[in-house]
């Protein structure tokens, strides 16, 4: 099968990757780049566990071809964790105990970041509807929704990271 070259910004670092045309972004991140924060779980774009941001939009990297990210910026949880804004998310999830096994957590965090950056995290209803593509099997969502409610609005001044 043919290989393609994809020039992708990964967490702010330009990468030139030669990958099989059918390679999934999730495999590129996990197996080639050692970025294991995005998890493989459902394989069919249902559970949100493999969520990463491509040009700021949340995508399921389990069904997203690496070659389609050519010319784009990919942000994974590892990259977001380096940004000042992450501290707010960390504190909210920690304070509300919004995780148990933690396997789904990076996907929730990145989905919420994308919602907030898009100005779509304004209310509890926004939170609930905005999380309909992320499954958590442990918490029953209450604590996650509460953590997300702490993040409603704009990022705190000066904390906004690069997209």
């Amino acid at each position: 099968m043919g290989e393609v070259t994809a020039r992708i910004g990964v967490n702010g670092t330009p990468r030139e990757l030669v990958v099989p045309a059918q390679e999934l972004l999730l495999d590129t991140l996990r197996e080639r780049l050692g970025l294991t924060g995005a998890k493989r779980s459902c394989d069919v774009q249902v559970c949100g566990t493999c969520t990463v941001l491509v040009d700021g939009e949340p995508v399921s990297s389990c069904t997203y071809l690496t070659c389609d990210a050519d010319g784009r910026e990919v942000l994974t949880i590892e990259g977001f964790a380096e940004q000042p804004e992450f501290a707010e998310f960390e504190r909210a999830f920690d304070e509300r105990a919004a995780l148990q096994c933690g396997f789904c957590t990076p996907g929730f965090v990145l989905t919420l970041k994308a919602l907030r950056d898009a100005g779509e995290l304004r209310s509890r209803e926004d939170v609930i509807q905005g999380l309909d593509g992320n499954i958590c099997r442990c918490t029953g969502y209450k604590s996650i929704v509460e953590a997300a409610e702490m993040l409603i609005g704009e990022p705190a001044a000066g904390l906004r990271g690069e997209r």
Partner: protein
Amino acid sequence: MSGVEVKPGRRVVGSDLARHDAIEKVAGRTVYAADFALPGMLHARLKRSDYAHAKLTRVDTTAAEALDGVVAVYTAADVPRNTVWVDVPGQTLEVGALKARSNVLADGVVRYHGEPIALVAAESDDAALAALDAIEVDYEPLPVVDDAERALDPEAPQIHESGNLLAHWELEEGDAEAGIASAAAVVEDEYRTQFIDHAYLEPEAGVSWRDTDGVITIRAATQVVEHFRDVARILDLPDNKVRLITPYVGGGFGGKEDMTVEPYLGIVVALTGRPARMVWSRQESLQARQNRHAVRMRYRTGADADGRLVAMDVDILSDGGAYALLSALVLLYSTTCAAGPYRCPNVRIRARTVYTNHTPCSAMRGFGGMQVALGYEGQMDRLAAELGVDPLELRRRNFVERGDTLPIGQPLETTVELPALIEAVTERLEPPPEPSAPRRAVGRGFACNLQPYGRCVWLNDWSSAWIGFELDGTLVIRIAVPDIGGGQASSLIQIASEVLGVAPERITIHIGDSALNPLTGTTTATRQLYMSGNAVLKAARDLREQLAGVAAELLEVEPEQVEFGAEGVSVAGGERSLEFRELLAACASVDVSWHVHATYRAPKGVPWQADESWRGRVFPDFTYGCHAADVEVDLDSGQTRVLRYVAGHDVGQTINPQSVEGQIEGGVAMGLGYALSERLVFDEAQNLTGSFAQYLIPTAVEVPEIDTVVLESGEGMGPFNARGIGEPPIGPPAPAVAAAIRDAIGARLTELPFTPERVAAAVRAREEDADAEG
């Protein structure tokens, strides 16, 4: 934050201490089983059966082995010992009282869709997948048994030589028939539950390698670190030549209680000498890993004119699938809990579990104790309607109390706070809302339950822990506990901090390693806080006593007067003090060590015997609950929406309130999925549910706001009198939703899940009846 207050005199037990593993998990840094890699590791995959029941007339691996990058293809003949023996304290007819048998790789016959036939190890995952396609398997299909009732037909195909009856429990206390005959009201119904999947987000995964001294080491997602022994037996190695490490696990719920990837990872490393990784796909996880038993229950329940139960006749038939695994034990839980938290003088219970060609069933949260809640609570609601008594009042008249004995002979030694739970849950409820639109109806339902915590008493369960100081005054806990997300490890930090004063952030816990940490038993059966918590509590108290003696000498007081604080010890409120570093130096000079190893042993009981007259204690203790659900039903589509939910449990004493609430909220959400949407669908034993696109797990949109009531009776067998809370919240949601739907539409649903189709059909039937009468 929770509303629970830390009790006077306590430092951290009962407080919302942030979990030590939270920050790593939020940042995506936790290294789960599939996140780990070793240089040069092989990729392992399983060839699985396309048929639910067939003879394997040919398994040819030649073409697969010849492919580029394929290192080895193994079949049953290659496995040193292909038979897995599961110790099951139940009445498994096939192999005597205490063991169940299955195969690592199918040997001549496959008995369920997805049963492993061959194991591939290759240089890349792509090569492994290509090898699976190249393995040639010829099947001679055998007739399929896909119904538990039919399995018992003498004419039915026999799945194992021992016959299709896998296990049974039967008992009678008093005279059930006479009781029924004397009852003022008798209600009778049949209840059915479905197969469901644990659906944790982390699929089964692990990595294996050969470590120093030839020890086969497996780092895998499991709830049971003691499976190292099972792997050793499969590999025909001494137990001490296999080591199992459990990283933080991405959810378990019983699905990682039986072995999953462990045997295969062991085989590849043992036979090739190379490291290996195996990760199951979601399709494999859904289709080929064990499920929760589907159960058919028939209940006849009689009460006198005052609404006091006089008789119960229960017939339970569960579908155990193709291999025994833990089915006999699951059935024992059903038998123990069949009458619910109710007092009844005449009880007959007949419980059977059978082999079929469905995916094997085994442990899942609630473990047989939860399915029967649909039956016993459904009966209480029917009886209340029959007698014209309020359903909660009927329950109050019949609750068991301390000193009572369950029909199986189980004594209840701790307080049963169900009346207080009903009161507390009812107080949290608001008036039922009005329907949001015409052709919609709202309803409210309640359900109560009991669920054991801790393993069967005759298993002589024990847990051990090691606690020691480092020279800088920080503390280390070593304990081979698998942490599957419930905060199993962080609760232990909290307990050690409570006793020894060391600040939680100065405590490191090393978990889940069968070689380096003391064994503490399985993270199953709602036993880990109870058992490991008691072990750590004992170790911490022993260590405190050890150090207090030395400190007392130096500070010239009695040992009891020594206070332990975050940085060290002191007396008289800090008048004189010693930092831990100083105290440890003093200990060294007088040959007192600053570490201890302690073991907690659970209460013992008379071993179960294969005899219908056996009665006795089965479990250490129980956790009780009361839940309430408000639902709205769309009368045309049948869609049921849960509007509000209140869940109350007596947990004895909370160690971490947020963790307790998390267990309750998560259990309710999982229970609501069970009630309304989740099911594995089979067609002639072919599992059709291969993806989360078909298997419908509730999201934040479906799960209502869950209000938790955490009652602390101060009685329980865990550390600081805590009770277990992992499994108990899973029981009540389905019967509470059933009662709420009944309240809304006037029709009773008895078969899970309550899908829109079933609810709409019930509404139509009810409306047609009304039209016919009108």
